[in-house]
């Protein structure tokens, strides 16, 4: 962390002394400080927001968090480091079962269980990264896809440990007293998630600005040039996989808490594929893109369902129609916006800035 802060700061000697910002402005100019301030503000706004929402809305919103964190990991791996993964659903499963088994067999506090989900998955991700470092493009896609297909079956093979098809129950933590007597577990969970989101976003934002982030991008852009510059390509790829897996594991742990149970049906190939699709549609390689992607994952299927229910068809037809609308939207969004939602947002901001400059 400290190293990356030093890295991110521009060389002071090269700047003219008069232009050095002073005092508070200088402090605010530091990316880490700025990110922390933005994160804290976001946290406070979020807390105020959930005070005005119904329990159902809060529950819906709290489904965004796990996806968001997993998408941050996937986005860094694929968008920044150039390694495709169709197996992040399986990594989420590892995090989810880690948390569940810890809750079942130990009396660990929540924070410890969440950190453990991230760490256990990180170790697994590092092992997967060792395999991945030898594979490229579609070969890596195939290997990770096979993992996503195979891993959930382990849970049905060893039923006594993992609970088989029904899976295991997960208890939601009760809200602490300082939130007031009326605070529900749903609200508390939403707040826990937002804290995790803010921490993960700040860590990754900082990481991407650092030497490590530059290594990631160098490997993505040109492996041979990177290797020639004395940076180990495989080591960088394994590191990227491990960190990405840690995020996916934390997302999985939170997902288990939100769902109230873990079962192999919740972590199928479909989840892995949806994550990749959401990552690309949100805007590959950007943290903001992960936000868009997770919102799309949670809300678009809901809208598609509402839309198809309005046509008053029978149950099975309307459920399938909702899926069809979702698939159609995937194709349409990529055709209209090949750079994802975040790409469009950037373009709009860029255009508006130019417009503002022109009259002056």
């Amino acid at each position: 962390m400290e190293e990356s802060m030093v890295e991110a700061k521009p060389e002071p000697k090269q700047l003219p002394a008069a232009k050095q910002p002073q005092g508070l402005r200088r402090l605010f100019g530091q990316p880490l400080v700025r990110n922390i301030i933005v994160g804290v503000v976001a946290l406070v706004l979020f807390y105020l927001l959930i005070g005005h929402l119904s329990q159902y809305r809060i529950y819906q919103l709290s489904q965004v968090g796990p996806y968001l964190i997993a998408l941050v990991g996937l986005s860094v791996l694929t968008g920044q480091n150039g390694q495709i993964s169709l197996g992040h659903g399986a990594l989420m499963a590892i995090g989810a079962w880690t948390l569940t088994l810890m809750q079942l067999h130990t009396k660990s506090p929540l924070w410890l269980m969440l950190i453990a989900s991230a760490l256990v998955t990180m170790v697994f991700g590092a092992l997967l990264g060792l395999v991945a470092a030898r594979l490229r493009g579609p070969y890596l896609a195939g290997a990770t896809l096979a993992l996503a297909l195979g891993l959930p079956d382990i849970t049905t093979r060893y039923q006594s440990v993992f609970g088989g098809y029904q899976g295991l129950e997960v208890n939601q933590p009760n809200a602490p007293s300082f939130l007031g007597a009326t605070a529900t577990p749903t609200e508390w969970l939403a707040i826990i998630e937002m804290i995790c989101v803010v921490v993960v976003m700040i860590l990754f934002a900082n990481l991407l600005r650092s030497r490590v982030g530059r290594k990631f991008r160098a490997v993505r852009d040109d492996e041979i040039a990177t290797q020639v510059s004395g940076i180990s390509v495989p080591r960088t790829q394994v590191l990227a996989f491990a960190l990405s897996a840690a995020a996916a594991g934390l997302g999985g742990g939170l997902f288990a808490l939100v769902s109230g149970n873990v079962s192999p049906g919740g972590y199928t190939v479909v989840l892995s594929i949806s994550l990749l699709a959401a990552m690309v549609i949100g805007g590959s390689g950007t943290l903001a893109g992960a936000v868009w992607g997770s919102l799309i994952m949670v809300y678009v299927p809901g809208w598609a369902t509402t839309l198809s229910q309005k046509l008053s068809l029978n149950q099975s037809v309307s459920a399938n129609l909702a899926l069809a609308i979702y698939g159609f939207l995937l194709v349409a969004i990529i055709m209209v916006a090949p750079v994802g939602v975040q790409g469009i947002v950037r373009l709009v901001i860029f255009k508006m800035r130019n417009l503002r400059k022109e009259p002056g």
Partner: protein
Amino acid sequence: MRNFWNFLLIGVSNGLVYSLVALGIVLIYRSTRVINFALAAMATFSTFIAASLIDRNVPYFVAFLAAIVFGFLLGAATERFVMRPVESKSPLNAVIVAIGMLIFLEAMAGVIWGAKLRNFPSHFSLIGLKIGGARLAISNFDLFIVTVVVVLLLALLVLFRYTKLGLMMRASAFAPEVARLLGVRVGRMLTLGWGLACAAGAVAGLLAAPKVFLFPNNMDGVLIFGFTAAIIGGLDSPVGALVGGLLTGVALSFIGGYLGSDLENVGAFVILVVVLMARPEGIFSSMSARRV
């Protein structure tokens, strides 16, 4: 020992279906560098067409051919109208579009034909053959699978090796710019390639359906094993697709038979990792060195 031979025969029969799916993936990958995940949905959709024709008393083989033609048209139309605009952009985008098509087509199949499991007639008996009193694990239908796959592979071999059209298709796949300069309509060749690939997918769907039943995403598992087979074979080699399919089918049959069928999916992952650790670009890949 009888178990061993039965597992082997089942593996070969399943493996040939995986080979067809792998072939569909390879034909598209080597010309457009896209992994066509929508192949599963295209196969299922074509099979549903055949099923509804058979329901209307159309003879089995007419429905079979109609489904293949439908698969061809669906693949060609997908390339021309959906994939063409995104092919030039990042390969990841093309993959996502293919996944979108997969979800869309499978859901549409559910809207049109319902999501319920249904039987698909096999025309040939699914009951094991008898040789000298012992019942084997292969049936007349498995022999039909072998015949269809061999005929199809020979037809493709003749097309690519001995016809001008096949030469033009190979040229478009390996050197599009040069092919275009020499007057080959590269775009048309790509459309044709997608059509052929999806026709192969449709055949795979028709051959798999009597065993895995027919429902909107009945081919998802088969697609992943087919993809595994294509990767093991090396993604740009049709021979690799055949060998990869057989290897995958036989290996999974042994794993399922001796260790338990719930380990088949895990087995696919293990096989992939083992093969790819030895040969990161598949067994029959022509790209031995990465381009600098």
